[in-house]
């Protein structure tokens, strides 16, 4: 493996919440220009893992390296500054606010001297329109509320925002789970576009089909542990499905049902 290309690497990451062991030894890495799919059923620890990578939680133990250097994030802001941007399932978008205001939320460019310092909204509008144009979203007016966009469009705006603000690694938390077919393909296409730009993408999903469509490597998470990482060439879609559903249990169920599963 070419180590220069590794953006994030975690080894044996453990996270306890009191007596609950949410993660008990997770290892994964993501490289430049690849889509790493993190697969796991409900309760596998996906959310905890993302939140740890995003700086919301601190790991109990284990190594967390960004571009080869060990890091310890105190807040989501630290993770953002390190180039790790997370697009949450709930989107971090505010429906009542305009596309522009959402796009620059928390990172508004200002002009003028205090006390006359103000947000450079002309610049913001222009950038927003341009960025939306690039990803092929018809933003009729950057002042329109985000609530008027479709789910897929909103997801793409959230991703575009992270890319625009210089993310090196994108963590996408189930970006397609609430979307219809056309909108899913729109988001997957955009993920592919982001990969070509050289970013690393961690794509979290429990939909194997979506993962297989766009992923380069697949890490399967089960009960707080990584079952392994597989390159696309090494694994078939049904194997992946079996792994995700928790290997052993499925075999047991299969035996019980007379080898039907």
């Amino acid at each position, binding site marked *: 493996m070419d180590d220069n290309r590794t953006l994030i690497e975690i080894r044996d990451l453990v996270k306890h919440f009191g007596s609950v062991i949410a993660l008990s030894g997770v290892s994964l890495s993501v490289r430049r220009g690849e889509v790493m799919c993190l697969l796991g059923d409900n309760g596998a620890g996906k959310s905890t893992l993302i939140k740890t990578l995003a700086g919301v939680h601190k790991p109990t133990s284990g190594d967390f390296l960004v571009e080869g250097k060990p890091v310890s994030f105190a807040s989501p802001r630290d993770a953002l500054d390190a180039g790790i941007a997370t697009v949450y399932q709930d989107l971090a978008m505010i429906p009542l606010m305009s596309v522009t*205001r959402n796009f620059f939320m928390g990172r508004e460019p200002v002009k003028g001297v205090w006390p006359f310092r103000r947000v450079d909204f002309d610049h913001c509008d222009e950038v927003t329109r341009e960025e939306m144009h690039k990803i092929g979203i018809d933003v009729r007016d950057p002042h329109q509320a985000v609530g008027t966009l479709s789910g897929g469009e909103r997801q793409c705006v959230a991703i575009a925002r992270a890319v625009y603000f210089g993310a090196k690694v994108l963590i996408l938390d189930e970006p397609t789970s609430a979307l219809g077919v056309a909108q899913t393909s729109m988001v997957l296409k955009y993920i592919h576009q982001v990969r070509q730009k050289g970013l690393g993408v961690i794509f979290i999903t429990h939909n194997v089909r979506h993962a297989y469509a766009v992923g380069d490597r697949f890490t399967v998470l089960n009960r707080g542990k990584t079952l392994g990482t597989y390159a696309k060439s090494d694994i078939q879609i049904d194997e992946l499905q079996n792994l995700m559903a928790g290997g052993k249990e499925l075999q047991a169920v299969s035996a019980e049902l007379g080898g039907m599963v």
Partner: protein
Amino acid sequence: MVNTTQPTTDLSPPPTVKQIQDERLRDVSLVTKIMRRPELGALAGLILVAIFFASTADASMFTLAGIMNILSPAAQLGILAIAAALLMIGGEFDLSIGSMVAFTGLIFGAFLTLNSWPLLLAIVATFAVAALLGGLNGQIVIRSRLPSFIVTLAFLFILRGLSLVGLKWATGGSTQMRGIGDQAGEGLIRELFSGVAFEGVFAWLAANDLIGKFPNGTPTVTGVPVSIVWFVGFALLATWILLRTRAGNWIFAAGGDPNAARNSGVPVDRVKTALFMLTAFAAALVAVLTVLDAGSTDARRGFQKEFEAIIAAVIGGCLLTGGYGSAIGAFFGAIIFGMVSIGLTYTRFDSDWFQVFLGAMLLLAVLFNNFIRRKVTGER
């Protein structure tokens, strides 16, 4: 950026406004643009109310003196309403505003009469105490994660009670404190907070027969009451902050979805605390203005102003759920209040219709806002 020319059939956009046009950018109709302004309802309401009074009230209502009469109560309420609007957009309520006016009025009076502090020091100290109390309100709400409705309801009673107890203690049993005006003295600071402004302009206007004057040459209206100047200034400042600054964007974000805002790096807790401090600050400003004007303070000062301020903010387009609204809307909302409360005395209607009107206006505003919100977000 692609810069295409408008199709020749399109007559709507004004040629003076140069805009970068995306070739797929559909023109947003003027109606949609206007509908998107949260203060639309308040402005429409103000026009309706003005038409109503223009046709029913005595003509003297719309003279210069009449308008000053309307704007004076509107200004006091408006300063509170604008702060309440910002707080509501930020996703919180403050029901203690009215009691805060009484309480800060008391401590302002006490600083002047009991401590014999100079006016400037008394004002600064009053604002400091108010900001502290507002900050306390905010911190309790944020740390306990309780609804601000209930926390500030507690402070509504605590501060009103403290005002009563404190007044009796300070005056030896009375619920009114007199002699504040004499203690305040005269000077520049006093003139900033009481009396009228622009006297020179009005005198000049009168001298040139542009406004009414008494036979001896003094104008019938000697100037604009300073509270109105503060009201207009505060409305402009709040609007600028809300629409043009980073803090404004954070206020919308904090009220729209605090989690999403936090995830995007907005310091939501700091924004909310600052907003609670601002409402308390506005209450203190109203206290200083009204106490200096009257020369005394009493325990009923600011009574029920919290509700009126919230109503004015809602009429001004603020959603109860936060994240949407405008300061200029609250400005118009407060003027509607002033116009109706004063205007009824110019008509032959019983002025107690005011309360009926108030409730009806609130209900209409909420229904209208709800409709607009669905339009804006495309919710169905």
